[in-house]
């Protein structure tokens, strides 16, 4: 293991332990790590955007390949900075209008064809027994879940009587969904902790053992 690798592992271990130290209480190590992370991210993003967007997608194609028309999106991008001036902030609306129109055009089709219609289609299930009792029960749950949940989000009439009853069933479905989300979220957060513990045990402690052996 080289000196650079040792330094990298020790630095990583210091940052990890500093962040975990907040669980006990706030302290200078945690603060330093938090600020270093914010500064590093900002610097990295600036460098990356400069390289991957401004240079690679605008300046290089303009000067190397003669795609002169790329100055138009470039100017639209520069216009966004007019938001910093109260007097000229209206100019940025030109760029925003372009972004909004473009985004709406792309997503209108993809959201409708890629999400809304296929999802609607997948809830239109046969409530027959041709695929067995299990499929029938699942189909009933899906159909009941979709209808009752949608009913819960119908606010044009007061949730009373039959409408109220169906909406209450919808709440149960939503609650079960929240429970599943909570369970998965716990798993996600514990996974991150496991990842750090595995790093500290195998890499960091491993490097210490390696150093003395």
């Amino acid at each position, binding site marked *: 293991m080289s000196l650079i690798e040792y330094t990298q592992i020790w630095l990583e271990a210091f940052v990890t332990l500093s962040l975990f130290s907040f669980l006990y209480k706030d302290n200078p190590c945690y603060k330093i790590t938090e600020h270093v992370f914010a500064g590093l991210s900002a610097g990295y993003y600036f460098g990356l955007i400069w390289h991957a967007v401004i240079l690679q997608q605008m300046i290089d194609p303009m000067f190397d390949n003669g795609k002169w028309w790329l100055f138009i999106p470039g100017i639209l991008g520069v216009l966004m900075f007019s938001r910093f001036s109260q007097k000229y902030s209206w100019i940025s609306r030109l760029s925003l209008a372009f972004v909004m129109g473009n985004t709406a055009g792309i997503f209108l089709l*993809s959201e409708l*064809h*890629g*999400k809304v219609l296929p999802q609607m289609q997948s809830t239109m299930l046969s409530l027959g027994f041709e695929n067995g009792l299990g499929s029938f029960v699942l189909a009933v749950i899906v159909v009941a879940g979709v209808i009752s949940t949608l009913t819960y989000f119908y606010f044009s009439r007061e949730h009373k009587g039959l409408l109220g009853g169906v909406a209450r069933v919808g709440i149960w479905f939503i609650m079960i969904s929240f429970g599943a*989300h909570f369970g998965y979220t*716990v798993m*996600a957060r514990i996974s*991150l902790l*496991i990842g*750090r513990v595995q790093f500290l045990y195998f890499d960091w402690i491993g490097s210490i053992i390696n150093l003395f052996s």
Partner: protein
Amino acid sequence: MTILLIFAYIFLILIGALLLYMTFKTDDRRYIYLAVGFYVIFPVIVTLKLPIMLSPEVKQLYDAVEALPDSSTVMLTFDYYPSTLAETEPMSHAALHHLFRKNCKVVTMTTIPLGGPSIAERVTRELAEEYNKVYGIDFVNLGYKANYVAVLKGMGTSIETIYPTDNSGTPLSEIPMMKDIENYGDIDFIFVVADNSIVDYWISIVNAQYNNPVGTGLTAVMAPRYFAYIGSGQMTGMLGGMKGAAEYETLLQKPAAANMGMTSQSLVHLFIIFSVIAGNIIFFMGKKGKSRKSA
């Protein structure tokens, strides 16, 4: 060995009960942190293994990749930040094991600027070395390009227009593997490993508009939302969090980081379930006691 295991479990239960008792007694949540930390660290130091059950969505993804003919072209994405490596990297590892084992041509790419390109480079090179795969012939790393919607849509027409060069600056026209790959039409399967909503666009743009089968590896936080896409047939299987990765590793018979973490997962989950039940019992007992006093 069995007696040692029984002692280990009794020890775990006693520690959990003690820390939970201390939490309720002192009202200090740091005992909970300590318990969670203990249950995570213990199985890493002392080897404890709990069985891993296979989920249908993981099996579906495994079967879909397994059914690909040898030498198929697969696009593998590294759409995740370094902060979720613990969940996502085992998925990328498992996917590459499977793809290289089947001699698939792998095109990797990322829509994540922070770490994505270097993670893709490191993981792919690591696995390629194990399977003696050659860069440019068996795999290519396209790297990162800004504006993911434009990237995803543009690759439907021409990958080379979006990525004139690979991650290290070599023109795609000079890479032998990319000579036969023009757009999504030349890609047999897309394996998306992601920790953000980019998956929506892989489904709503690439699957819906270009009919490419899309299988995913997602962080656990995202997983419940995407089950609907499996039901509708828009997604060909899914790995949900570390558990999904561990199941895929099990199917591949290549237990690695995710398998190692699953015992900690199970122990922490058991502790949390027990804490929720105990907390509720104590809450209701306290309520009952108060109402008796006021009566």
